[in-house]
């Protein structure tokens, strides 16, 4: 793996390799000392130009469990504030001897651009605008596979603001690569303008889709990105597209409900539904560390 910019870079074999390696690292999680020397002497910088809690903590935890040195960069407290350009900032951090850069940015494509600017660093997309969030989709696949054994033939329903969701774009690529069928359930205004070439079906009836679903992926309505204006009101959105108590009754017992977080209880998911056994949000977070360990390991090499 040169960089991890998009799930499309991996293909089925690449995804399966990440999941296999993540299995091994998940075992490390269960040891009394949850640390391996695999990446000792390697340095990973998390460069987050956009706010994030769980993704940054997850990557940093993953890097530390692999014994890598971790540098944490925040746009808010850096010379970016003084007007330094993105490219100069990236080149400066790389010049400090980093081996991998985990990039989070509000603009789509920044990790792709950064991968052209670096000399030898590996670049990991930690979420770019509406484009992709590959490690999130990988950890979702990992979680589903852990619970259901495989993804082939499973029916995945992705619900909500697909238009503005980097998670959805990565999920569609990852789930379909692993043999699942994907249905998007959303108001038309929250779907991308074109779905040409997307291996998906679209439904306007969430109830119908939930009844046959093996996996329900809830997306957050990204109100801070102006998504609120794409539906008349949060109230109407929740009524039509929220996983309400009533809709949760439609779920099969073995269905898996995922959410990339942060979860807004009462909007895309009812408060008590989030606590049902089918909802696996904390399991996703735990698995996220193992999956990111796998990604860093595969990028930076070294014997496990």
């Amino acid at each position, binding site marked *: 793996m040169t960089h991890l910019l998009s799930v499309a870079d991996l293909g089925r074999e690449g995804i399966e390799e990440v999941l296999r390696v993540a299995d091994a690292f998940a075992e490390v999680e269960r040891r009394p000392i949850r640390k391996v020397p695999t990446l000792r002497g390697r340095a990973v910088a998390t460069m987050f130009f956009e706010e994030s809690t769980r993704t940054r903590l997850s990557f940093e935890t993953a890097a530390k469990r692999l014994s890598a040195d971790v540098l944490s960069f925040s746009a808010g407290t850096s010379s970016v504030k003084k007007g330094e350009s*993105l490219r100069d900032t990236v080149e400066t951090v790389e010049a400090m001897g980093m081996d991998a850069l985990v990039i989070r940015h509000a603009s789509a494509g920044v990790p792709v651009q950064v991968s052209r600017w670096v000399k030898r660093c590996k670049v990991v997309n930690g979420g770019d605008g509406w484009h992709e969030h590959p490690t999130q989709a990988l950890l979702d696949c990992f979680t589903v596979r852990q619970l259901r054994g495989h993804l082939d033939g499973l029916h995945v329903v992705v619900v909500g603001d697909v238009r503005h969701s980097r998670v959805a774009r990565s999920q569609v690529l990852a789930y379909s690569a692993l043999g699942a069928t994907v249905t998007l359930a959303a108001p038309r205004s929250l779907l991308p*303008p074109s779905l040409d070439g997307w291996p998906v079906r679209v439904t306007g009836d969430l109830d119908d889709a939930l009844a046959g679903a093996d996996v329900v992926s809830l997306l957050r309505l990204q109100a801070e990105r102006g998504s609120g204006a794409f539906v008349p009101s949060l109230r109407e959105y929740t009524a039509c597209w929220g996983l309400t108590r009533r809709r949760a009754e439609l779920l099969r017992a073995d269905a898996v409900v995922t959410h990339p977080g942060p979860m807004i209880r009462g909007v895309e998911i009812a408060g008590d539904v989030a606590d049902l056994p089918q909802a696996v949000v904390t399991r996703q977070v735990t698995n996220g560390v193992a999956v990111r360990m796998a990604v860093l390991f595969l990028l930076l090499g070294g014997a496990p």
Partner: protein
Amino acid sequence: MTVVVRGGEVVDARGRRRADLVLADGVVKAVGPDAGRELPARATVLDASGCIVSPGLVDLHTHLREPGNEEAETVETGARAAALGGYTAIVAMPNTDPPIDTAGVAREVLALGRAAPVDVAVAGAITVGRAGERLAPMAELAALGVRLFTDDGSGVQDGALMRRALDYARGLGVTLAQHCEDRQLAAGGAMHEGAWSSRLGLPGVPAIAEEAMVARDIGLVRLTGGRLHFLHVTTAGASDLVRRAKSEGLGVSAEVTPHHLVLTDAACAGYDTVYKVNPPLRTDADTQALRDAVLDGTLDAIATDHAPHLPEAKDVPFDEAPPGMLGLETALGVVLGVLDLERALAALSWRPAAIAGLSPRHGGPLVEGAAANLCVIDPASSWTVGRLASRSRNNPFAGWTLTGRVRHTVVDGEPVVVDCEAQR
């Protein structure tokens, strides 16, 4: 100075014929198959054997960045790039800083242009500050020779104001030019809205953002009897609207850029900001429709929208990058890749010259007594696009091999490009 252009074939609005030209005092003194046989004393000879001699190219749409952003381009450097591209006249767009919305700024740019290697005409702003709120002093600018007015970079959003501008311009005998983009529909888009923008997660500019304003403005031209030139038409739908307006006999003309004839939104797949341009690169079907529209005369002119930006301005996230790409030095080669020579030259020289009000000094037939503004093109010469003369580097055709190259350019009888080298 006497210049003899020897051994070429002249192609102009009158057709194609073997001819030498003798140029002196800024005009064509003699033209004919044997005009260059006996050389006058101290004549400079420009070899045109195997080459096409054409009236100089005329660019309706050049961003020179002076005043305000001289690091990216100046009148002088932009004009030099133009000369190398075979242009003898360019129209400087008014989105400078300050914009060309007063006689003072227009005079400054015109004065800089007089020292430049090609003729520099200016387009004035339609509205003060290009803000789309009140009319700029168009009569004052027209008195300086300004013949084209536009708020290029943004379209005049207010339909009532655009109607008033068309009425007012009609009385002055000048032409308005519109960058058609409905701001609400474009909604901050960074590329063409379609399959690629959806996959790349970039906000898109739908075709309707352009077509809605083209349709509105055609209606306003019908209502006012005014004259309007459509800048950089990019969609099949917009070119259809222009075609119908022309068949109605309305006073409209239109241009297309070289890049919209050959590049598509797929070029944005790698988030390389060199491909960010406004209007955005559209689909394959659009490029085909635009080529057809040049062939049937719907699109009169090919104009570069030469828009220099410094590397540091472009080395930013795609959605934050300023739109625009270089074009003056590559336009002819790119266009010859998709159009035959005669049609290419009509769209690059005599038709834009007429729209800009620069005929027959530029673009006119190369007959005895004509102004000596011409270029010599080697249609068979292949070259790989490398470092350009422009101050900026945002060149989407870097590394392309183009066939057809400008060998010499003569402005007012003076060779400003000789054997592909700028003379000043």
